């Protein structure tokens, strides 16, 4: 129980962060013509920000099942890397059916916080998922039902919440490691190239994120290989 409670506590800031981010998703989904329960169901079953955002954009047109599959695979391929990465830190009892159940909750932020631990037990991970899951679901519900009551400038500001959270995950680690900082700068440079260079900007956003991330990580692994001891900083 101690592990579960610790996980619960670590998940709270993610839960609050998700509340504001999924609030935006709820508003957007309703503005696209979805019912409130459809928006909530999407959040409860999919639990991902970028994938859902791209998903509802595809769903408003009929019959684009292949496009849906391709967009989800390219946007979400990063989760595969995260799953493999975290598989290296789990305690021995965290195996088999437990992996199949809790693999569902592998989001960027849950992964990032779990990665900060030297060893991840099932109970810790289970506790960690509670607040983010409820935050993501409730935020979508509130956004879908109440969204239109908020003034526009507040809505716009809330859109930055998810990115603030990403920076909060990267910056403290990059501050302490020149290697990581260099690799992150390469990723940002590539991402800007895909955004601003006309020939490259035809690549869809989901695919370009995966490409930039993989190229920068390969660059890091070749130029600054990380030794065993450094991985548990």
């Amino acid at each position, binding site marked *: 129980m101690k592990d579960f409670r610790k996980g619960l506590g670590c998940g709270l800031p993610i839960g609050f962060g998700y509340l504001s981010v999924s609030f935006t998703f709820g508003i957007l989904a309703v503005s696209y013509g979805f019912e409130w329960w459809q928006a909530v169901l999407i959040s409860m079953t999919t639990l991902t920000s970028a994938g859902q955002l791209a998903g509802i954009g595809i769903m408003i047109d009929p019959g684009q099942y292949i496009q849906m599959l391709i967009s989800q695979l390219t946007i979400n391929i990063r989760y595969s890397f995260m*799953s493999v990465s975290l598989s290296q830190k789990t305690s021995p009892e965290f195996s088999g059916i437990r992996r199949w159940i809790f693999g569902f909750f592998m989001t960027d932020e849950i992964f990032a916080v779990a990665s900060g631990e030297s060893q991840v037990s099932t109970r810790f991970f289970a506790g960690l998922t509670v607040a983010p899951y409820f935050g993501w679901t409730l935020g979508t519900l509130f956004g879908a039902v109440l969204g239109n009551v908020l003034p526009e400038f507040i809505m716009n500001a809330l859109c930055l919440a998810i990115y603030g959270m990403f920076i909060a995950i990267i910056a403290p680690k990059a501050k302490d490691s020149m290697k990581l900082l260099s690799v992150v700068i390469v990723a940002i440079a590539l991402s800007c190239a895909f955004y601003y260079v006309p020939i490259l900007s035809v690549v869809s956003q989901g695919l370009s994120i995966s490409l930039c991330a993989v190229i920068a990580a390969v660059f890091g692994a070749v130029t600054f290989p990380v030794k065993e001891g450094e991985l548990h900083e």
Partner: protein
Amino acid sequence: MNNKEFWIYLLIMAGSTYLIRAIPFAAVQKKIQNVFIRSFLYYIPYTVLAAMTFPTALYATGNIYAAAAGLIVAMIFAVRGHSLTIVAVMSCVTVMAVTFLMTMSI
């Protein structure tokens, strides 16, 4: 979009997202010894988040100056070791403040 189409779309979206997370998590049970792969896996979460944030976040609020200010404030608070929530809230507050000030001065 009718009801049936919604359910098919939902199944594809939720199903593919689940499998892409769960299969690698369940399949890799051993410790990976290869230094290259270990290093790659160490860097990947940070490169993903960095590529998702820049430059997209600059255009997330409808006001590029407010977004830039929000991101800089987020970096300052994050480097000082504040929690995810504090960093996220401060970046939003900054966006509101800058947007408000710019509207006033016009």
